[in-house]
């Protein structure tokens, strides 16, 4: 959202414009949910986002715009989620759950580190062409659901929301090296699903 769009939206929000609130919620709910989900898991994520929206309303008149609206909203969400968060998450931090089509693992390489099973060309070379296949779309969603909460949130925040790695670290309170590991594992699993589908034509 451009600075001008943001200014206009904020003015309308302060005037209690219902339409402006709808725009705000539909635009940012996805990113906010990803942040809450990373910190709390599915059970409490929605409640934390609700907390965050109310905190946003209260904070709006005082919002100084030292950061972008999106960064402000996500910081409020992270704080709301941390307030609800009781147990120690560190234990599950790097949990790596099995994925429907696996990953790009050691078995793909020979002892000397060269490819044993090299990637072969895919039939489609654009996201639009890939996603025009209903079965593949469902298959990808299935893989995304198989990711651990942190892997899935980091992937969404990076690829879909376009956040910088440092921003993700700050929001979720995890180290850069952990964000890099989580992101890489998540990507390889999605890669494996795409590759499997391109090779076999089925999920």
């Amino acid at each position, binding site marked *: 959202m451009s600075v001008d769009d943001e200014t206009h939206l904020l003015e309308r929000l302060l005037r*209690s414009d219902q339409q402006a609130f709808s725009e705000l919620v539909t635009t940012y709910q996805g990113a906010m949910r990803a942040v809450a989900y990373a910190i709390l898991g599915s059970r409490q994520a929605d409640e934390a986002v*609700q907390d965050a929206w109310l905190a946003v*309303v209260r904070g709006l008149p005082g919002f100084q715009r030292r950061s972008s609206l999106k960064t402000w909203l996500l910081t409020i969400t992270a704080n709301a989620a941390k307030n609800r968060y009781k147990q120690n998450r560190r234990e599950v931090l790097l949990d790596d759950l099995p994925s429907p089509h696996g990953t790009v693992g050691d078995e793909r390489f020979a002892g000397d580190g060269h490819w044993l099973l090299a990637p072969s060309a895919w039939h489609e070379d654009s*996201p639009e062409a890939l*996603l025009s296949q209903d079965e593949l779309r469902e298959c990808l969603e299935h893989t995304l659901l198989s990711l651990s909460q942190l892997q899935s949130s980091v*992937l969404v925040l990076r*690829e*879909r929301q376009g956040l910088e790695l440092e921003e993700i670290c700050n929001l979720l309170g995890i180290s850069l090296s952990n964000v890099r590991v989580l992101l890489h594992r998540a990507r390889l699993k999605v*890669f494996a699903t795409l590759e499997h589908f391109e090779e076999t034509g089925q999920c």
Partner: protein
Amino acid sequence: MLRCKELVARSSDYLDGQLTLGENLLARQHLLFCKNCRCFIKQMRLTQATIKALPEAPVDDVEKIVQRMTAAQRSDDTP
């Protein structure tokens, strides 16, 4: 010289610009000579673009959330 397995292990860092100058040079050098890894990186980029293009689940209760927000705003205005 970097091996394919190592290139793959560093591929996300390569795509995110997280490699050091030296590591990045090694990765580029490897890619220059290795068709398989070039194909892999190309497919990783396509994987990224595909995740980005996946339709986001719609927010199901926008109206309810908005009602709650405007109600909270009103109650703040009239203490």
